[in-house]
């Protein structure tokens, strides 16, 4: 049986537009690696579709992108997808990566208590530095790239079959590398001035649950 991977990609404001576009490469990568990909993009990133996919296809790995809070993860137009205490059974046995604000604070911890194998997320609001000149071409944004690539590494590494610990360490190392670059003279003015925001994401990225968990 093929491994199933579910990704949410709401796209309704500047922040979600960046995440939406920067996750495009992950779709291609996962398909190449033989994953069955459940792509909940734009309007499809709603609670009804999410619950239906979870029940029918039972994905092993879920990658949430978008806005959230300490207790919820949201989809398109801020619609709640999952909430602490409300969706106990459906997430059991899964690996979750939430690129959403504060999700690791309460939601992630509760997930682990309720049987989620591993949870990677952020304790505080996710910060994204970007170049205002590139808002129409986010994939050419050399500031956002320094934020997006290391956080994408978590998903790519898990999809490759690595443990969540390996994925987490890889992402942390890439952020350290990017921080060094941003403090160097090679960085542009904008990249240098965004350094504290990437450092903050690095400090707030956490791994919870069984560190040895693998999705495939």
């Amino acid at each position, binding site marked *: 049986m093929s491994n199933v991977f579910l990704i949410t990609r709401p796209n309704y404001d500047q*922040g979600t537009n960046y995440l939406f576009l920067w996750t495009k490469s992950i779709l291609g990568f996962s398909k190449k690696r033989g994953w069955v990909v459940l792509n909940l993009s734009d309007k499809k990133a709603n609670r009804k579709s999410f619950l239906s996919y979870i029940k029918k296809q039972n994905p092993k790995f879920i990658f949430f992108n978008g806005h959230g809070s300490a207790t919820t993860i949201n989809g398109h137009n801020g619609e709640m997808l999952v909430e602490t205490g409300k969706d106990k059974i459906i997430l059991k046995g899964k690996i979750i990566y939430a690129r959403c*604000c504060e999700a690791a604070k309460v939601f992630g911890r509760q997930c682990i208590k309720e049987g989620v194998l591993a949870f990677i997320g952020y304790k*505080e*609001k996710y*910060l994204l530095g970007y170049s205002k000149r590139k808002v129409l071409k986010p994939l050419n944004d050399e500031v956002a790239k320094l934020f997006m690539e290391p956080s994408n590494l978590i998903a790519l590494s898990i999809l490759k079959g690595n443990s969540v610990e390996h994925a987490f360490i890889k992402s942390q190392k890439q952020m350290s590398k990017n921080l060094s670059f941003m403090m160097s003279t090679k960085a542009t003015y*904008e990249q240098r001035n*965004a350094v504290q925001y990437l450092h*903050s994401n690095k400090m707030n990225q956490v791994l919870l649950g069984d560190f040895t968990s693998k999705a495939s």
Partner: protein
Amino acid sequence: MIKMSKKQQVEIKNKAINEDVKRLVIARIQAASKKGDLGVIVGSDDIKKTNIIKSIQEENEVGIRIVEAHINFLKAMASGEIYQDE
């Protein structure tokens, strides 16, 4: 002369530190945005320079998050922690 309790003295000292921290972070943001076109998205808010400064002055959720990011980065620089993971 009015004598202050120890608690009051600590409160005043902390407040002064907070004001200094706020001034420091605002100065960093103003200096950084003199040229260039850096934008920052804080959660669901895409913040302009003037709004960041207002948020810091008001000490709202976004302002506190920005101040924390700047101060923790400066502390990591001062302690050398930021260079340890390279």
